[in-house]
């Protein structure tokens, strides 16, 4: 992208998608695009965040998101500290707010939080002086995942407007689904959710999506098939009866994928359960699966988000600057 326009980004925190305008989303994706190019160069370091301190506060285990945020901060020149639950004061009984206040006293500029409770990022944002980025709170939101998914699609297809996107699987517990529904809806895509009724939140249709219980109708003419992870403890009879039944009716295999458009892209936020929600053959199809690309886009999108929050504006030029 070569746009020279500067888009103001008047947000202190990035907690969800709802606060972002379509213009801001486009500008974030433009900036991220330039960071993709940077990340592919041997020399990846910029100094946009030099002198800034970023704390990654992960109350839930995570490999790719934590690594992605860490790399994003470091590539922009920030000092990045990782805090995970193991060895933290949380294990010793400290509350979230006390932990936040303690860390806040050390004057971080950016705090990236992942927490099992919906609303944890919001709570943290009320207590600290710096910027908070929500890296996933409970079943509520995961805005950087939605942005990286959008970037992946945009780079492959060229646009988001008018695309049919089928989000399949455990919608009920998924923050990824909620953020994607918001973002894709804002950008003019037609979003469908496909799941057994037990894995759909009530009144899901009120989110502005089409609700399907059958993969054949849900995937019909889809441009994008986005699979969600189903946690193992949820398929032993409580939400679905068994892995084999889930895979039979909701697992993405060649047969079900045939209902989508012939060039439909396959996405997954990871980590995948092969043979549960997605067949290995489909997951590894180099022509269709963009699952690895999603991971690459993740770093670039997070760089754009950190940059935008610190500088309060977005310009696609910066990636080329140094």
């Amino acid at each position, binding site marked *: 992208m070569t746009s020279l326009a500067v888009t103001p980004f008047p947000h202190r925190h990035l907690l969800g998608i709802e606060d972002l305008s379509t213009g801001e989303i486009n500008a974030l994706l433009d900036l991220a695009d330039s960071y993709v190019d940077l990340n592919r160069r041997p020399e990846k370091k910029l100094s946009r965040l030099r002198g800034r301190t970023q704390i990654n506060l992960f109350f839930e285990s995570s490999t790719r998101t934590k690594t992605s945020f860490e790399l994003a901060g470091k590539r922009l020149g920030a000092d990045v500290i990782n805090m995970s639950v193991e060895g933290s004061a949380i294990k010793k009984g400290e509350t979230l707010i006390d932990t936040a206040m303690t860390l806040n006293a050390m004057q971080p500029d950016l705090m990236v939080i992942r927490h099992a409770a919906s609303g944890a990022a919001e709570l943290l944002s009320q207590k600290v002086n710096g910027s908070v980025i929500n890296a996933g709170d409970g079943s509520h939101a995961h805005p950087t995942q939605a942005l990286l998914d959008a970037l992946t699609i945009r780079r492959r297809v060229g646009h988001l407007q008018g695309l049919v996107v089928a989000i399949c699987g455990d919608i009920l517990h998924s923050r990824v689904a909620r953020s994607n529904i918001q973002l894709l809806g804002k950008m003019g895509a037609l979003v469908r959710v496909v799941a057994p*009724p*037990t894995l759909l939140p009530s009144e899901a249709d009120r989110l502005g999506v089409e609700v399907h219980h059958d993969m054949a109708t849900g995937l019909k003419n889809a441009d994008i098939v986005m699979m969600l992870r189903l946690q193992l403890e949820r398929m032993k*009879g*409580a*939400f*679905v*009866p068994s892995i084999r039944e889930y895979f039979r*009716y909701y697992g993405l295999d060649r047969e079900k994928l045939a209902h989508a458009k012939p060039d439909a892209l396959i996405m997954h936020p990871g980590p995948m359960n092969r043979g549960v929600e997605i067949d290995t053959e489909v997951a590894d199809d180099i022509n269709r699966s963009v699952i690895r690309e999603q991971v690459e886009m993740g770093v670039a999108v997070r760089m754009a988000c950190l940059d935008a929050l610190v500088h309060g504006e977005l310009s696609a030029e910066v990636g080329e600057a140094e």
Partner: protein
Amino acid sequence: MIETTAPKTAYVNARLLDPATGTDGKGDVLTVDGEIADVGALFDAGTPDDAIVIDCGGKCLAPGFVDMMASLGEPGREHKETIHTATRAAAVGGVTTIVASPDTRPIIDEIALVEFLERRAIETGDVRVLPAAALTKGLAGEEMTEFGLLSEAGAVMFTDGYRSITNAQVLRRALSYATSFGALISHHAELPELAGDGVMNDGETATRLGLSGIPAAAEVIMLERDLRIAELTGGRYHAASISTAESVDAMRRAKDKGLKVSCGVAPYHFALNDAEVGPYRTFTKVTPPLRSEMDRQAIVAGLSEGTIDVIASHHRPEDPEGKRLPFAQAAFGAVGLETMFVIGLELAHTGNIALLDLIARLSTRPAELLGLPQGRLAKGAPADLVVFDPDPPWRIDAGAFQSKSKNTPFDERPVQGRVLRTVVAGHTVYDAG
């Protein structure tokens, strides 16, 4: 064994009863290859030469009965009943399709067990046996079974038999999940904590006999809960067996709301009341228990108006060892395949229900709930028929039962009406001669 090819047969000179079309009149039925080929005034000008002709002598001909709830003893309790003996009993009672309860040993909660039951039924059964699969694994009331795969294997319904799902979240998820497959969930609505160690209806008789009682509220509390969960989920819910006046009211309200709910009743609940327990007659120990006379009358009214959809035998064979015990220790249950229809006929004779409506409760409506093509006299429907005379008087004789077990509360009861012939897939499986 159900044979696969059947000779072309003309059933002539019958009073046709078909609730599906509201037919009650003189006519004939032609069956070819196990299916009904034609219905109506077919042979006034003479019968075809190539068909076997069965003269019904002006007696009633109706679609065979579809029993939504029967325990067949097999596998696991073959000393009480087998598929062979149960289907013999069914044939005598005019029942052409039995839905087998999954509370066998082992419990029918796996695809292979559904297939086993189907295979055994084809090999040893005289009438159709369709498996119901367990609603929860091991009937434990915790984890739902594979509704999709089990339906594909042939399970027509999901139920935990005489066990109730106490955890409302489990029932909610099961009913919700079942909507994907249109599966029918049948539930025994009885709050176990309130039923406690009760052995009969809570009331005067229980008090006089010194037996612990099961209050009517144990049923209606659970049923009301279930109906609200059915409303929440949009699932297809069937109360397997209701027994109280308040349950009939609850069902009526739920149906008025437009919910996809239905209910069944066992013959003893419209024929008997808790006074029948009398001198500790263990053959009257059933679940839910025989209720008060007021409840019984409400059940009759519910059947008459259609609030109660289905009459099911709730056939539950028990050997003498299970019943020759002090009342509190005796097993629950009564056999019912052979008596379901004649006990039902009592309601028609007393003017409580039209004969056509009785056939609807015994055949058309259960077939409809189960999604079966049976239950109607229509071209292309399976040739599952019953020929009966509603009038001749006789006495029920448990000793003459085809069933291996004789635990009936109706022994020596004077009744009216007899099955003359039962036809499954175009073959006569019972002929009273």
